[in-house]
């Protein structure tokens, strides 16, 4: 899922204009799992905005505002609510799509941080950097682009200490994890011995659009 965290309210008040009727929008999928855009988060935001003198026209939690069908469905249910701007408690994709569809300015209430997974307890952990060149088949299922803080693909750097990264003593070294995991799984990894060329950005998702297969 796409992981988001709340911007501080003091940051939002710096860019959110007063005097405009606001639709506060949430997301019932990823942002709801992060507790950043669920019903509760949206209700809290509405309350805070009103306390701070903002005009809230209404609120709605979309069922995945990264999908056009969900946005259409959401706005149909919202009906003829009059709003002039959107404050979006969704990921960056949701915020942009809501603004595009409603043809109004959509402001972000969240920061989109990574693609990750909810863990046991409160933590949400990054698993994928969405780099567009998946190498998991070569690295025992552990991503060197994300798990190695320098995204190295030819093995560990010299800074790793007892399984930790050189950037701090708490972050695990991705290449230590790859090494250990390959031993656990009993797989011989060619990437240890063969040269991996630089990643290419020419077929990268940063080209903005990929074409999906039709049914």
């Amino acid at each position, binding site marked *: 899922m796409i992981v988001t965290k709340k911007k501080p309210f003091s940051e939002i008040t710096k860019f959110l204009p007063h005097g405009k009727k606001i639709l506060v929008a949430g997301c019932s999928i990823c942002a709801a799992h992060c507790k950043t855009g669920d019903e509760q988060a949206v209700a809290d935001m509405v309350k805070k905005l009103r306390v701070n003198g903002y005009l809230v026209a209404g609120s709605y939690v979309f069922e995945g505002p990264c999908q056009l069908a969900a946005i259409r469905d959401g706005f149909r249910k919202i009906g003829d609510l009059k709003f002039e701007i959107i404050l979006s408690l969704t990921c960056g994709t949701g915020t942009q799509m809501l603004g595009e569809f409603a043809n109004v300015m959509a402001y972000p209430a969240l920061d989109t941080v990574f693609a990750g997974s909810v863990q046991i307890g409160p933590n949400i952990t990054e698993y994928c950097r969405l780099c567009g060149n998946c190498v998991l088949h070569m690295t025992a299922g552990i991503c060197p682009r994300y798990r190695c*803080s320098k995204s190295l693909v030819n093995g*560990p750097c010299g800074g790793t200490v007892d399984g930790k990264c050189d950037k701090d003593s708490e972050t695990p070294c991705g290449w230590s994890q790859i090494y250990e995991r390959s031993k656990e799984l009993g797989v011989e990894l060619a990437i240890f011995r063969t*040269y991996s060329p630089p990643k290419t950005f020419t077929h990268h998702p940063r080209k903005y659009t990929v074409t999906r297969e039709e049914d």
Partner: protein
Amino acid sequence: MGFIAKMTEGRFAVTIELNPPRGVGMKRFWEEADMVRPYGDAFNVTDCQRSSMKTGPVGICHLLEDTGMESVVQVTLRDRNRLAFQSELLSAYLLGIRNFLIVSGDHPLCGNHPDAEGVFDIDSTQGIHVANMLKEGTDMVGNKLNKTPKEMNLGGALNPFSHLAELELIKAKKKVDQGAIFFQTQPVYDVKRFADFVSGFKGLKCFVLAGVLPLTSHKTAEILKYKVPGIHLPDDVFHRVRSASDPIHEGVALARETIEQLKGITSGIHMMSVDSIEYFPKILEGFTDKQDPS
């Protein structure tokens, strides 16, 4: 004679690391450089070491070369993408620099610009591969260079004490396959373990210069023991310096003993300093056979 040629003849080489200033005042830099000038065969200039902003090494290596000191420019991939990297190597070559130590570099969070984005577009192994392509006459996508920087000597860094020693050795072999001909290592305080590690280099066409970082103060010993990643400082060595009433004397003696033991194990040594460069003449006396110590 260059330090690579010297090692090729089987002679023990000494490289000495010099740290650039932060700013354009070169007085202290030259004082240090002049102090160690007679003792080194070549002089590394670090590239924003520990991710802390300093004056760049290419310009400083050029100044060293102008005074007759052979330089080794350190180039991190932390701070430049593949375009800037290739361009930088060619600029350095134009300025008379022939020796390149190519490293990924410490993470920005280690230094004084922790908000910086680490580039890491290519890694150190790929950097050596790309530099070797330049050396053979093309850029990394195959465009022919109008003149080839044939005399480049490419090197890499090495941590003989990584807990992933097996991978470190494999990676070094990859770097040799891609064109590295020398390695400079992290400081060695455990010669036996180091000797075991470099025995894996038998048959590889490369030179290893073992890192020597003198421990001439209690503070340095503590920093290296607890604060710097990738450095293996055994307890007995740490306590020897930590409990010494005269740490300078002890640190100098320890460094000399280490170098003595390293002779015969490696092609040379790579001297690094944490506030100890003034003791280098004492430490290196008798170990350098530089023909012209002027």
